[in-house]
């Protein structure tokens, strides 16, 4: 009995200490809730989240309209304008290809050629031209999904028109993934699948996608290191040796941030090198762009770390709050789940995060877009770095001056 009592006493002491530390409670309970909320928002909702597809209907016939209606009945959300708004500029083949790659407004682009309605399915024999399906190589299975949906839509159309299904599988059955440009005899609509973008660096696999997502997340975690050390020194008073020397608070802050950038930069390359050695990710073929993007990312994460530190009183508080913020940013920004899976309403929020911009930049490099392809992303990241660093430094500088006299 005594042993149980003592055991409970010790456990109770730990709980009591924990309950008195709000920051520790925060870091224990909040991350799980935040992540759950984010993933639930991404994946929850009615079954069969709408599949977004751009459409360029060059035929504009009753036949093509019927196919489109059937697709919409199968929970495919069709976009016919560049902006997604009804009054936006109409999609063209070129703009559709561009928008798949860059902005993710739709996952695939369906081009219905002129004359489709005259021979809308394979029953029409050689007159059937099929449809063109443009897709992003980073999400190759989207093409397969859309192909299946097209078959289902075509089958539904056939059932509605009462056409004979002799010699074909019913449209209500699951389709098998198609291979290249062949014409399997069970397909109702022939689909010409065309991948968008140059995959000169080899096929884009999950290891590219995860590298793009995880690198910014983990440099964010280490980004607050410099600010954390500074807060710890301010808390212990040992910062005063530095401040009593013939230097300014700006020296201290810039030196701290430089440390953060250097540390983060080496962290990036440690991950890149591992990815190259173990998974064959071809980092050397995008060396220049990777250097620029990594530097911009590290500057942004370090500046953000300084800003977070400026608003925290203690190193422990920074750890707690920083963890929650970084996990939330990483979840929304595409570090944990690719952004193209997220619901539309969530997509713009990814662009409010460092992760989102770094992710897009990395994918652009993998697509062989080179330095020109990451100019936008790098500029935004450097802008974030400057804004966060300036604001964080102003606040920290004032705190350092106050700290001097403590």
């Amino acid at each position, binding site marked *: 009995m005594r042993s149980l009592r003592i055991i409970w006493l010790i456990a109770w002491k730990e709980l009591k200490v924990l309950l008195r530390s709000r920051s520790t409670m925060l870091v224990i309970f909040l991350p799980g809730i935040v992540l759950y909320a984010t993933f639930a928002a991404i994946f929850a909702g009615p079954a069969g989240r709408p599949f977004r597809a751009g459409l360029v209907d060059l035929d504009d016939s009753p036949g093509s309209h019927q196919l489109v209606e059937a697709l919409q009945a199968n929970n495919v959300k069709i976009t016919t304008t560049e902006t997604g708004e009804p009054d936006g500029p109409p999609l063209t083949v070129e703009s559709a290809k561009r928008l798949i790659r860059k902005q993710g407004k739709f996952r695939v682009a369906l081009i219905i050629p002129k004359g489709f309605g005259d021979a809308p399915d394979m029953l029409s024999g050689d007159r059937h031209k099929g449809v063109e399906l443009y897709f992003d190589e980073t999400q190759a299975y989207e093409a397969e999904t859309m192909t299946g949906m097209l078959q289902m839509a075509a089958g539904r159309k056939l059932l509605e028109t009462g056409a004979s299904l002799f010699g074909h599988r019913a449209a209500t059955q699951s389709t098998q993934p198609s291979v290249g440009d062949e014409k399997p005899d069970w397909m109702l609509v022939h689909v010409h699948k065309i991948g968008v973008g140059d995959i000169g660096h080899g096929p884009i696999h999950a290891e590219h996608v995860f590298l793009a997502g995880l690198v910014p997340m983990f440099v964010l975690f280490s980004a607050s290191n410099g600010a954390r050390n500074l807060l710890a020194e301010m808390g*212990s*008073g*040992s*910062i*005063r*040796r*530095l*401040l*009593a*020397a*013939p*230097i*300014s608070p700006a020296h201290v802050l810039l030196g701290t941030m430089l440390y953060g950038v250097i540390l983060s930069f080496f962290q990036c390359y440690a991950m890149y090198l591992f990815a190259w050695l173990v998974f064959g990710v071809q980092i050397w073929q995008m060396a220049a762009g990777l250097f620029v993007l990594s530097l911009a990312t590290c500057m942004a994460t370090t500046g953000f770390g300084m800003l977070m530190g400026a608003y925290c009183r203690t190193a422990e508080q920074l750890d707690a709050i920083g963890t929650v913020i970084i996990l939330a940013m990483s979840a929304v920004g595409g570090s944990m789940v690719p952004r193209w899976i997220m619901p539309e309403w969530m997509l713009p929020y990814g662009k409010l995060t460092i992760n989102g911009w770094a992710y897009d930049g990395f994918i652009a490099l993998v697509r062989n877009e080179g330095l020109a392809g990451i100019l936008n992303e790098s500029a935004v990241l450097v802008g974030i770095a400057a804004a966060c660093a300036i604001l964080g430094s102003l606040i920290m500088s004032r705190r350092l001056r106050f700290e*001097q*006299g403590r």
Partner: protein
Amino acid sequence: MNVLTVANLRKSYGQLAAVRDVSFAIDSGEIFGLLGPNGAGKSTTINIISTLLAADSGQVVLCGDANLSPIQQRRLIGYVPQEISLAERMTARENLSLVGRLYDLAGANLKDRVAAMLTAVGLTERADDVVSTFSGGMKRRLNIAAGLLHEPKLVLLDEPTAGVDPQSRAYIFEIVERLAAEGRAVLYTTHYMEEAERLCARVGIVDHGQILAMGTLDELVNRVGAKRELILEMPGLTAQSAERLAARLGGATHSLDDGALRLTISSPEHALLSAVRAADELGLTPKSIRVDEPTLETVFLSLTGRALRD
């Protein structure tokens, strides 16, 4: 010319007046002590002098030049903070090299200065050991060395012996005395009167942000009229016996407190002999006899009505 002149310094934090009209001066080769309890304003005063904190009003003049910029002032000042301001995972030599570079020391000069400081604080043998392996006393010594690398004219030591063992404390005292012998002006803050009595040529008694009294130990003692006392402990001593004993000792001012007779005296040697003889003649047997010299504790008590350690 005084190395440091502080005139009418004031600093408040909201309603709290941390430093109130503080003025003093320190000459080269002099150790000036600021003695007071915790919260008296000693560290705030040092922080203002070291330019870490801006005063609300008043003036700090270094080496007779009132127009020095804060950066220029810091080059003349060696600041040894109360906190151990060292990188624990670096060696002693690396810590000193880092600080030296902050003061623009470089090359052979830096190397020589680092070696000299390590020798001066007795850490040469541990020069390449990581600071986290040092004892508290060793860290304190290294902390002092870091403040002296650039050969400052004025050394500010903020309670440099806090939490230190007696051996290291004695070592630190030697270092401080050597600084004065080298011609540096030293401002030493402490709440230990024995440190101030041992080291300081002059002492400023500080309480509630004010210097209550300032001068040499003798001046302070005379100012408050503190006297030497001969104390004879004789349990059961009556007031009558005490009067007779005091009369035998020339009518010395005296008081009786719970069996302890306190007599004000001028010469301890003469008084001791006389007291023993007088007690013997009266058939009294003292349990103990001692002479209490007036101390800064006495001065502080007299000035503030409470003990230094209250």
